[in-house]
């Protein structure tokens, strides 16, 4: 399929420079690659937000992106997203134990 796009001159120059550096044969191929990478990143960010907002589990996010759980964990770390958040039951448990330890110290 063919499309026609207009582009400012400086952007076109940058594109050509990148094409020459990468040794890509045509502008079309380079634009396809850049678009593919950008769409993949957008999708990853969108799916990561589903995890952050509590809409999907880690596994479900991994399934959407067709990656394994380890790659999903690495992706969240790469995006600076901790696996937990303040409201997770795991965190509440950690804080509950911390409280119990503190109360015991006070009693002693």
């Amino acid at each position, binding site marked *: 399929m063919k499309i026609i796009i207009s582009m400012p001159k400086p952007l076109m120059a940058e594109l050509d420079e990148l094409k020459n550096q990468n040794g890509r044969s045509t502008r079309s191929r380079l634009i396809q690659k850049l678009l593919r990478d950008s769409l993949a990143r957008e999708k990853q960010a969108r799916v990561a937000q589903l995890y952050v907002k509590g809409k999907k589990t880690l596994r479900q996010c991994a399934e959407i992106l067709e990656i394994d759980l*380890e790659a999903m964990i690495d992706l969240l770390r790469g995006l600076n997203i901790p696996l937990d958040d303040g409201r997770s039951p795991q965190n509440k448990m950690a804080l509950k134990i911390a409280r119990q330890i503190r109360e015991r110290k006070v009693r002693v």
Partner: protein
Amino acid sequence: MLFVVDTSCLIVLQKLGWLDELRQPDDTFLCPTKVIHELKNNKTLLKWINKGIVGVVKVEKPISITAISTTDAEVISLALERGAGILSEDKELGKKAERLGISVYNLASLFMLFYQYGRIDQRGCLKRLRTLADEKFISQTLYRQLLMSIKS
């Protein structure tokens, strides 16, 4: 204590080189067979599991939970079957398990528990929590809250 370990925790433990933290004489760690299937490409982890530190168990009657994957459901089912807690880094899995009355831990709460029971000292606990925060497995906010709590 008895824990069902989710793949997410095993992966984090492996990344940090901490798998042997689960070698605890007073605790039992189990995982359902689906977790093992999920690790089919991770030979190192499978080899470690084969040492028997984590017991692999077939879930008798996996429950069906909407909006959750079959592996997540097996983790929850096994915990319900055995009356165990769940060890998982996945907060959404944690929320679903909590609604069913299961105690849910991540590595930060597990280390807090180890400290509470005197299996690790304060310094060891803080060091582990610091690493979890530095490696972005827990938030800096949680780390600071736990740090203040332990040191106070």
